[in-house]
Each structure stands twice: as C-alpha cells, then as structure tokens.
C-alpha cells in the first residue's frame, strides 16, 4: 500500500499519522483493512482502506472517491462510525475523518460506544492486524460487553440528556452537536483542569446558574493527558427519587399513625419547625456518658414540678426520656436533650436530636409492633417503652438528622 512516496519503504514515516492531528495516540493499521463507506450526502458507497486509527479520528485511503463529505464507515455489520472527511495528505488520496458518532444497530449510544471504541483502541491487545482480522470474534465479544454495560447503565434510560466532550489542553470540545449551557461548560473546564494534570478521575455534581438543572459530571483521564468527559442531566432522575422518598415517607407516616392510634407521628420539616417554636424552654442537658443519665432525670423531675404530674406518671415519662437518652449515648456521639413546656403547663416536650444512626424509618413498624426484647436488634426495647409511656411521639427527619420529641400531657 503506497500512501505517499515514502511508504511502505520507510516504516518510520509518520506522515499519515501526523495528518490525523491527534498527537501520539494514533496508530497505523497494518495491513490496512478494507471497509465500506457511505457518503451521507449522496448515498454513494465505496470500498476504501482503513490505514490509521486514533480515538477521535481515522485515516482512509480512497483512490476512487474523494471523501470531503459527511460519511459513515462500516467497521462491521452493526458497528459504524460517522464523521466528516477532510483531505489528509496533499497529493495523495488519503483522507482524515473526525469521528462524531459511533453507531450500533442504528442506535446512537454515544458515550458507551465511543468509550468502547476508545477502550478497544487503547487495549493491550492493540495488535491492530489481529484485532481487525478477527473482527467477527471481537464483535461478538463487544456485543456481550455492550449488553452488560447497558444493563449497568439502565439509569441512563431515565436521563434526559447526555453531553459528551473531549478535554484537551484547556479546550472542551463537544462530541456531536449536543452541548451544555456556557455557564456549565465554564464550570466543567474549571473542575476538569486539575483532573487532566493529576490523572485522577472526577465525579462531581453541577447545578445550573438558575438552579433548575442538575448535572452529573464524569471525567476520565486518558493516557495522553486529555480527558473523556460525560455530562449527564440528572434533573428528572433526582426529582423522581425525591418523589419516591416522599411517597415512602407518607406511607410510613400513615401506617405508623394507624398502628399506634396516632401516638407516633412523623413530621415534615415545616411541621417540626412549628412544633419546636411552641412553648418555652425549661432546660437543656448535655449527655456524654451513662453517668449523665441520673442527673438528667433529676433535672427533669425538678423542672417539671409545676406540672404536678402524679408520681407514677412522672416516673413513666422519665423512663421514656431516659430510653431516648440512653439510645443517644449508645450510638457513641452523645448530644443534648431540651425540655419545653406549654405556658399553661398543659404539656411538656423533650426534644432529642439524633445524628441519624439511631432511628431508621424502616425499623419503626417493627419496633412499634413488637414488644420487649424481641426488637433487641433494631431499636431495642426502648422505643416500645417510649411509645407506651408518652402521650405522643413525634419524629422529624431532615438533612441535619432526626429529631425525636416525647410529649406528655398534664391530664392524661
């Protein structure tokens, strides 16, 4: 195959590789492989020789048809790439095609397949002659890989848009016509730059300037200090997840309300805020170790004197508060307990802030339905005691953790 005057007599010749303008990542296909191309503008087809490959461009030897148009190259029956042909070497029928898209079975799975193309290209088995001659076998393997990858990436079906880029020396080049808003691209560049230098992969979440869109950014460094970049619009996925959580929360709220005859009430952030604003604070007690529990009970007894609770009732409430406090200490972090009372002393509330490990929504039905030590492995017996000895138990979960509120009426 004579591409120019120096080939193949000069194996060191780099002219055809340099024409791809992709740096060191390009390789010669030896021997060249015959592939079918279609000029997308005219529909004309022709057999040409694939002579050079790189991640982003390929070189084609086409003595019979100039390739100055959008074209599709058929690498296998169902594995094609699309791009734009340009003159490669002046005076020779050598053309360079910048890859825009990789297609399989007419589907454009940009990210997946382009990555796969890159993987193929960069794989250790990159003895091009073998790879290209054993294409059928390779193709079957790729089919399997694609299926596996697609299963892993089923989340992508819910994704509105995927933007693909190639980052090289400060330039973010979109692959294909899809691109994100300029403000997002600026932020991407800022984040990707260190990645391209350190070679560590990057996963970040980006929010659009107006706060309406959320993106996941993935950047994978490539061996030549450039980066493959995928930006996925996950706005709808996040909305869906929020809705799902909300539905789950409402289900638990209703279930627990029925089971406990409205003794255990789940509160949303707003309800929790309103509840905490009522009444006045009687005391705030820090808890670090089991020895603090006795002084907590003593302080509660004293603070609640004006409520005139019967002895037994007060003891039961203290047992309940004590259980909540013990749980908090058990989980290792300690914390503080606040006590509020209504201005007319008609009720009081102990507020316990849990860092989130102590109370798991999924455990609550079991803990409320099963008595005693049978619940040892979830919330322990403590939760059952709290429910028995309080008039109401409020549970508010927010990003900051969980708040448990134990309420006691003066006239219960």
């Amino acid at each position, binding site marked *: 195959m004579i591409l120019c005057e120096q080939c193949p007599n000069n194996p060191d010749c780099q002219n055809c590789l340099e024409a791809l303008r992709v740096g060191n990542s390009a390789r010669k296909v030896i021997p060249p492989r015959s592939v079918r191309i279609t000029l997308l503008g005219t529909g004309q087809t022709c057999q040409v020789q694939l002579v050079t490959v790189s991640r982003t461009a390929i070189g084609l030897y086409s003595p019979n048809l100039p390739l100055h148009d959008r074209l599709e190259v058929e690498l296998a029956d169902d594995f094609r790439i699309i791009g734009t042909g340009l003159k490669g070497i002046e005076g020779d029928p050598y053309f360079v095609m910048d890859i825009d898209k990789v297609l399989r079975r007419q589907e454009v799975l940009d990210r997946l397949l382009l990555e796969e193309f890159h993987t193929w290209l960069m794989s250790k088995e990159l003895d091009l002659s073998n790879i290209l001659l054993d294409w059928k076998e390779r193709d079957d393997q790729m089919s399997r890989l694609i299926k596996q990858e697609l299963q892993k990436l089923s989340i992508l079906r819910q994704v509105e848009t995927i933007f693909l880029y190639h980052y090289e020396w400060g330039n973010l080049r979109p692959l294909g016509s899809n691109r994100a808003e300029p403000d997002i691209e600026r932020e991407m560049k800022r984040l990707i730059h260190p990645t391209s230098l350190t070679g560590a992969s990057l996963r970040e979440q980006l929010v659009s300037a107006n706060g309406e869109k959320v993106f996941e950014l993935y950047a994978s460094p490539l061996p030549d200090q450039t980066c493959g970049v995928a930006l996925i619009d996950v706005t709808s996925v996040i909305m869906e997840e929020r809705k799902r959580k909300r539905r789950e929360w409402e289900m638990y709220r209703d279930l627990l309300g029925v089971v406990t005859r409205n003794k255990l009430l789940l509160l949303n952030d707003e309800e929790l805020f309103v509840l905490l604003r009522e009444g006045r604070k009687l005391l705030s007690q820090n808890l670090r*170790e*089991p*020895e603090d*529990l*006795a002084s907590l*009970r003593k302080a509660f007894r004293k603070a609640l004197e004006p409520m005139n609770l019967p*002895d*037994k009732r007060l*003891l*039961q409430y*203290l*047992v309940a508060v*004590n*259980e909540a406090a*013990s749980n908090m*200490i*058990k989980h290792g972090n300690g914390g503080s307990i606040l006590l509020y009372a209504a201005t007319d002393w008609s009720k009081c509330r102990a507020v316990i802030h849990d860092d989130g490990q102590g109370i798991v929504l999924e455990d609550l039905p079991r803990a409320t339905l099963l*008595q*005693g*030590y*049978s619940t040892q492995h979830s919330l*322990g*017996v*403590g939760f*059952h*005691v709290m429910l*028995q*000895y309080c008039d109401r138990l409020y549970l508010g979960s927010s990003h900051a953790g969980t708040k448990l509120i134990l309420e006691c009426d003066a006239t219960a």
Partner: protein
Amino acid sequence: MDYRATETNGQATLFFTGELDMAVGDQVGQLLQKYGERNQTVRVDFQDVSFVDSSGIGSLFFTTKELLALGKEVEIVNVREEILDILHVLGFTQALGISIGKAE
C-alpha cells in the same frame, strides 16, 4: 446503685438499692452471674429499686436467661408496683417466664 447479698444453703439473695440504669447495667448482670454460678437459687430483691430502664436490666435479663438454661432458679421479689409496670412494658417478665413478686 448499691447492693448487698446473702448466701445460705445454695440460695442467694441479692438486694439492690437505687436506680438501675445504663450506668450500672453491666454490674447488675455480673453480680447475678457471680451469685448464680455458686448457688442453685437466686432471689433478686427489688424492694429498694426506684428506677429501671431497658439498659439497666438488659444484662440482668440475659444473665437470668443463661442461668435458667443451666437449670438454676431465679426469681425477682418485692417489686414496687410502678417498677413492676415498667418490667411488664419492657417484656421482662413474659419473656423469661420467671416469678416476679410484688412488694408487700
């Protein structure tokens, strides 16, 4: 929490005084273990116990279970009404199937 103990003819009585909470839970269990190992019967006297919670009697619960499995006898006696109520709510009595005597 304080305690005292008597032992005669393979029967021990443990008298607990004060509050049985998380701070003393392990100690309560260890005491029952100690006296249970060298006696056939252990009476745990709750006359002067003024407070219990799940952590305070958790160890007592599990030690009692072990002793019962070894064929020993454990009973809890002289329990104040309000403390008995807590033990019921904790499921202590039902789960162990032991005799719990009210205070006179």
